[in-house]
């Protein structure tokens, strides 16, 4: 792996931009409720598989971008992204060893941490939304993880 030196940066940029666009594509309401957090999935994948391509700063910037994209309080997604990216970076070697279903489970935990942080920040800033549908994106995100690994693995290996 050291022979690669610095990993190419453009795959992560392309994937994050695509994920950012996917997070806003108009969908019917019921699909919108279960829309997974694409950007975070991409960030987790790169943190686990190619940890040198995007650091925490990149995750933070992605969070800020999503905040401004969605018109939320600036810093909300940024904080949650950094926290999740930190966990993913921290445990990336362990996660690589896991079988795919096990990985999905860990990803579910990471996405749940993300949703919890958002929920908590929403509560502190006075927009509490305690709807059970909030947890759905974490579940769909975890279910989508095998597809994400397959797609991104193929894409990034060509880079």
């Amino acid at each position, binding site marked *: 792996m*050291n022979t690669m030196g610095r990993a190419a940066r453009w795959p992560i940029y392309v994937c994050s931009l695509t994920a*950012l*666009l996917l997070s*806003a*594509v*108009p*969908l019917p*309401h019921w699909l*919108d*409720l279960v*829309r997974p957090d694409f950007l975070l999935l991409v960030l987790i994948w790169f943190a686990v598989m190619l*940890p*040198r391509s995007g*650091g*925490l*700063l990149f995750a*933070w910037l992605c*969070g*800020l*971008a999503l905040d*401004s*994209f*969605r*018109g*939320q*309080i*600036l*810093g*909300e997604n*940024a*904080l949650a992204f*950094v*926290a999740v*990216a*930190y966990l993913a*970076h*921290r*445990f*990336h*070697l*362990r996660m690589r060893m896991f079988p795919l279903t096990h990985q999905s489970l860990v990803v579910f935990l990471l996405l749940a941490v993300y949703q919890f942080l958002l929920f908590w*920040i929403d509560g502190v*800033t*006075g*927009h509490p*939304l305690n*709807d059970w*549908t*909030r947890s759905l994106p974490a579940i769909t995100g975890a279910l989508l993880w095998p597809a994400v690994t397959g797609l991104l693995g193929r894409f990034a290996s060509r880079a």
Partner: protein
Amino acid sequence: MSLLREPGARYAPPRVSALGLRALILIAASIGVMVVDHRQHELTAIRTALSAVAYPLQVLVQSPVAAWNWMSSSLATRSALMAENEALKTDNRDNDLRLLRLEAIEQENRRLRDLLNAAPRDAETSKVASILRVDLDPLRHRVLVDRGTSDGVTRAQAVIDSHGIFGQTSNVGLKASEVILLSDPTHAVPVQVERNGLRTIAVGTGDARRLALPYLPRNADVRVDDRLVTSGLGGVFPAGYPVGRISEVKRDPSQPLATVSAEPAAALDRAREVMLLWLHPRVPMPASEPAPPAPTPAPDKARDKPRSR
């Protein structure tokens, strides 16, 4: 906390050694940004800049929908277009007739208000904005419209559609701004029952077809099918615009407050185009009839967006 002990430190170069430290710094930075954004609203310039960057992306996201709409309208059959044209002509004639009467009534109203020495109503100007088909948070009722500071849009400005009050602007970017709908759970609008002038507040419920009126006492004089209009208190919404129609009144003898719901007049989940309103306070006793000046921002302190219980 073991900031420096990495599980893979033996064979991965120590590039990520200070990972925890960096995470802490970035989290602290996010908290700082949030506090400044939430408490002081001082990041408006940065927000505007960021949304100027985001706007082309948002346009890109909705481009397939826009292309589909364009295709379906350009492939519409001649007979459908003719029928639509006919219907619009009929509508237009009816509206013209109504407008003639309205103008006379408005003149009369102004004269009567002068006689009463009542404060004249605010003048309004409006601009049409179309809703961008971009999904924001699914649990919050917000939409993005294609007007921003470059069109003179300000924060807390009333937005209506052709049936009634739609919402108000919250975050304003250069080219696009976010509108909070009436039905957003954090939105409240001061209203009046048209029949008897009873004032209360209509609060969003998170359901686009229902508003709640939680502050009416059990014996309040409201009935199903009463029309609700804006009361003009709070300074964001002009008085007299339709807000909704009472759809349900439940009076539980053991409760001090009645459970009242209303159905919003505006097509909150269907509208494609909305109008942004600018209010211009009229000077009482004008020396000469003032032409509507350039859009002025609504007084910020009178914002009635955040609901406080």
